[in-house]
């Protein structure tokens, strides 16, 4: 038996035999065991892989057994025991509901016993109906209990649920709306059977109106005349019958899983879109034992205990190419992996070349991508965003206008400052006028010469008197002495006369000096007056110059002063957008237009709000300083300007945004918290790039809620288009995704053991569901929820 689903199964679980003759009459009379070859040929001709004879309220074991002998001879891979029950679920039903029951064939004795349980009444030669020509619901349940086999229930719903006509005989919705809703909500039936191909469209509408998970439709031929297969009968002119394909292994568990998951049911064999980049198998040698693990084209999950080598397998198979900054594959980890392989004598003989890899998200990488903000600009998304918006023209308009405003502000401030330089001028006041008198000094040279002459005479007389006295001491003659004394007396009177003259002369010189001194004092005083006047004049002239200059300068400032005005023409800033699949990748600035109102707010942005100050109210630098928010004592005008320019830059920052159409067809913007959702949505939607998607523990990066709500669908979509190889510890990824291939790593006496197969795979050694239940935390609960009422199997 194949371990994984390589091809979808074409099924027909609703074929009648002669056993239904009690109800259908002669139309089935030739559908006998003797004529089984007719049916076998037809089934092979139509490539049917799984089939069932499902007669009305009865079972022909021999016929079942005969058909079963055809398994694996031609197309037929599985024949399952089945009965079409007629059940009256309510008292006021107009007709019974036909329910095709598919039984588990694992226990042949119990299968054989079905015929006995449904033995006809000997008198009527009909089933033991307890309510009109049908079984009541209680009886139906009683019969199923007696048969005691796992069962899949498929109800007739040949008329579409969207039809406004009266419900058709034997369809499930004949029970009325209330009971039918109960069927849906309780998932009473695994699936609903229809036949007319045209109804498929309407069934899809019904599925979209209700929860998709609650309604599953498959086709059944309801063939009553084998020669006409797959038609109802040779007389029937209905259109071409379309078989249903199921993605499952050909066993009861596979059928049960497929019929309870809409993504495993299709009217086309389109579960795996052919992709050339597929890993067919993984070859591993452990202690010289060779393992060849078949790989599904869809989802392959690798599970097992921690540190058993799951991540190692991914990195080794991809030849360690992800040893970059986002990967946990450091040199020491790589060395550790190689050591582990050597110590355990493990050889991984399969290599996935880089060109066959769509993407390899290593453990924890997606979260790192989000944390580092790389989601929006990394290689994967880079080509999805449009080029940046050209904001240069907008910025130029704004900056130019800011420059004008700053110029105006400066001129206003300069005018204000110059006003402070204006002063009052005092006109020069002249209080004293110096005299115009000309003073000529007295000349004293004659007096001085006379004085010198007289002084010399007096000096010579004194000298002569001394010499005569010397002579007198030498002379003894009295006469001569008398004569000499007389001469001395003469000299004395002469000297007295000259002394008198000299005294008069000195008086005259003193008077002259006094006059000249008075003249000098007068001139000094006059010069002093002249100097003070000149100084005052000079000072006045300088003051006057300054006075004039200050007035002219103020006038100049007034002329140059301009009021703050601006005219910003309304300009829209359009998003740059690029559509990609169902998304629009957008670059958007923080503002969507500029105009006068915006610019006015921009000018007020650096100013305090309390008290409210606007740029028009500011007249000088001091007022500006007091008005600025977070002012740092630098040049206030520069501070003001820088704040405005920073705000412009901030407003023109381009945010990368992703929009996606919602169910109403409107674009909704994703919040940053939904990065992972966008990431996986885009990955799953990418149908153009080939290659295998390898991911190591996606649950590390996404919340359990998000896994359930979004990721499961993303992965289901993705595995239709490409092969996925995933390492996980989360049972949701294994069970709810209905993994196509589960590769289980366990330790068997310290030796690594590898088992694999589809979720439904089971043989004498391996039971994949059991392994999942055992190895994964929460595995049992997840399987129970998925396995629904197949608890019997679960218990087994």
């Amino acid at each position, binding site marked *: 038996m194949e371990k994984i689903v390589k091809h979808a199964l074409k099924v027909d679980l609703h074929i009648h035999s002669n056993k239904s003759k009690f109800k259908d009459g002669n139309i089935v009379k030739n559908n006998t065991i003797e004529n089984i070859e007719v049916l076998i040929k037809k089934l092979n001709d139509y490539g049917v892989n799984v089939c069932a004879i499902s007669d009305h309220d009865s079972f022909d074991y021999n016929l079942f057994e005969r058909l079963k002998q055809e398994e694996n001879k031609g197309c037929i891979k599985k024949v399952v025991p089945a009965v079409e029950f007629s059940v009256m679920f309510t008292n006021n039903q107009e007709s019974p509901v036909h329910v095709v029951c598919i039984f588990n064939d694992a226990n042949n004795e119990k299968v054989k016993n079905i015929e006995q349980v449904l033995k006809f009444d000997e008198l009527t030669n009909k089933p033991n109906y307890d309510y009109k020509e049908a079984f009541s619901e209680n009886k139906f349940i009683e019969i199923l209990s007696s048969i005691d086999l796992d069962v899949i229930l498929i109800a007739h719903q040949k008329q579409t649920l969207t039809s406004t006509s009266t419900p058709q005989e034997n369809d499930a919705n004949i029970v009325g709306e209330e009971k039918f809703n109960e069927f849906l909500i309780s998932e009473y039936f695994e699936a609903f059977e229809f036949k007319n191909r045209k109804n498929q469209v309407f069934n899809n509408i019904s599925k979209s109106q209700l929860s998709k998970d609650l309604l599953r439709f498959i086709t059944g031929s309801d063939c009553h005349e084998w020669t006409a297969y797959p038609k109802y009968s040779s007389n029937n002119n209905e259109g071409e019958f379309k078989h249903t394909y199921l993605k499952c292994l050909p066993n009861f568990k596979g059928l049960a899983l497929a019929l309870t998951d809409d993504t495993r049911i299709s009217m086309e064999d389109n579960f795996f879109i052919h992709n050339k980049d597929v890993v067919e198998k993984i070859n591993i040698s452990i202690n010289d034992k060779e393992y060849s693990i078949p790989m599904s084209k869809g989802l392959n999950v690798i599970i097992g205990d921690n540190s058993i080598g799951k991540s190692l397998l991914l990195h080794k198979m991809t030849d360690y190419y992800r040893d970059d900054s986002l990967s946990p594959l450091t040199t020491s980890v790589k060395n550790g992996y190689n050591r582990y392989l050597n110590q355990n004598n493990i050889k991984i003989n399969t290599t996935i070349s880089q060109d066959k890899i769509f993407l390899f998200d290593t453990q924890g990488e997606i979260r790192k991508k989000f944390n580092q903000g790389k989601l929006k600009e990394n290689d994967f998304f880079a080509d999805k965003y449009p080029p940046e918006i050209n904001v240069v023209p907008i910025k130029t308009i704004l900056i130019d206008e800011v420059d004008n405003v700053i110029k105006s502000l400066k001129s206003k401030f300069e005018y204000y400052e110059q006003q402070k330089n204006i002063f009052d001028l005092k*006109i020069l006041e*002249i209080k004293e006028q110096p005299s115009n008198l000309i003073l000529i000094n007295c000349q004293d040279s004659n007096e001085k010469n006379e004085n010198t002459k007289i002084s010399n005479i007096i000096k010579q007389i004194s000298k002569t008197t001394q010499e005569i006295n010397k002579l007198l001491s030498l002379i003894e003659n009295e006469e001569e002495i008398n004569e000499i004394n007389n001469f001395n007396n003469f000299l004395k009177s002469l000297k007295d006369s000259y002394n008198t003259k000299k005294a008069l002369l000195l008086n005259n010189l003193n008077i002259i000096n006094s006059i000249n001194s008075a003249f000098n004092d007068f001139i000094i005083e006059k010069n002093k007056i002249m100097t003070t006047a000149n100084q005052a004049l000079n000072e006045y002239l300088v003051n006057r110059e300054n006075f004039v200059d200050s007035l002219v300068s103020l006038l100049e400032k007034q002329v140059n002063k301009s009021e703050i005005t601006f005219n910003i023409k309304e300009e829209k800033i359009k998003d740059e957008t690029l559509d990609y699949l169902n998304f629009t990748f957008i670059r958007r600035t923080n503002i969507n237009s500029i105009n006068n109102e915006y610019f006015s707010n921009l000018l007020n942005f650096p100013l305090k709000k309390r008290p409210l100050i606007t740029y028009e109210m500011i007249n000088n630098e001091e007022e500006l300083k007091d008005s600025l928010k977070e002012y740092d004592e630098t040049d206030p005008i520069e501070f003001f300007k820088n704040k405005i320019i920073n705000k412009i830059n901030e407003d023109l920052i381009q945010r990368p945004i992703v929009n996606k159409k919602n169910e109403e067809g409107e674009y909704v913007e994703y919040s940053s918290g939904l990065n992972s959702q966008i990431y996986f949505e885009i990955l799953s939607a990418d149908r153009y790039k080939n290659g295998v998607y390898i991911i190591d523990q996606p649950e590390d990066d996404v919340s359990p809620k998000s896994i359930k709500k979004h990721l499961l669908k993303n992965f289901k979509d993705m595995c239709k288009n490409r092969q996925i190889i995933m390492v996980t510890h989360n049972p949701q990824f294994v069970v709810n995704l209905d993994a196509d291939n589960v590769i289980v790593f366990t330790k068997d006496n310290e030796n690594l053991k590898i088992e694999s197969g589809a979720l439904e795979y089971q043989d004498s050694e391996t039971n994949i569901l059991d392994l999942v239940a055992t190895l994964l935390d929460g595995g049992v609960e997840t399987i129970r929820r998925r396995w629904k009422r197949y608890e019997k199997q679960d218990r087994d």
Partner: protein
Amino acid sequence: MVALKQLEGDGRDMKNKIEIRIIDDCYNVFHNNKIIIKVSKENLTIKGRELYDNLFSKLDIKNKIEFEYEKDSSFINSEEERIVGDIIEIFDLIATKINSKFKLESLE
């Protein structure tokens, strides 16, 4: 007192008429019949702000500024004449500097 001569025309010929009269111990300076400053004889001070606000801030500086003066005939002494002369000199100085600064040329 000499009455202020009003010149009328197309405006191009309009000249700035400055008249100075002594009233109540003040030199009163008029411009086109409106008083612009008063200079008290006591402190002989020209108030810059008043002069700017009342005259120069209002001048049309598209054309060359030229003042024509009319003086009060009742000046009694040379000191008063000197002061009036100084005031006129100041006005002319300002006019010259404005003309130079703004490169103003006469229309004639």
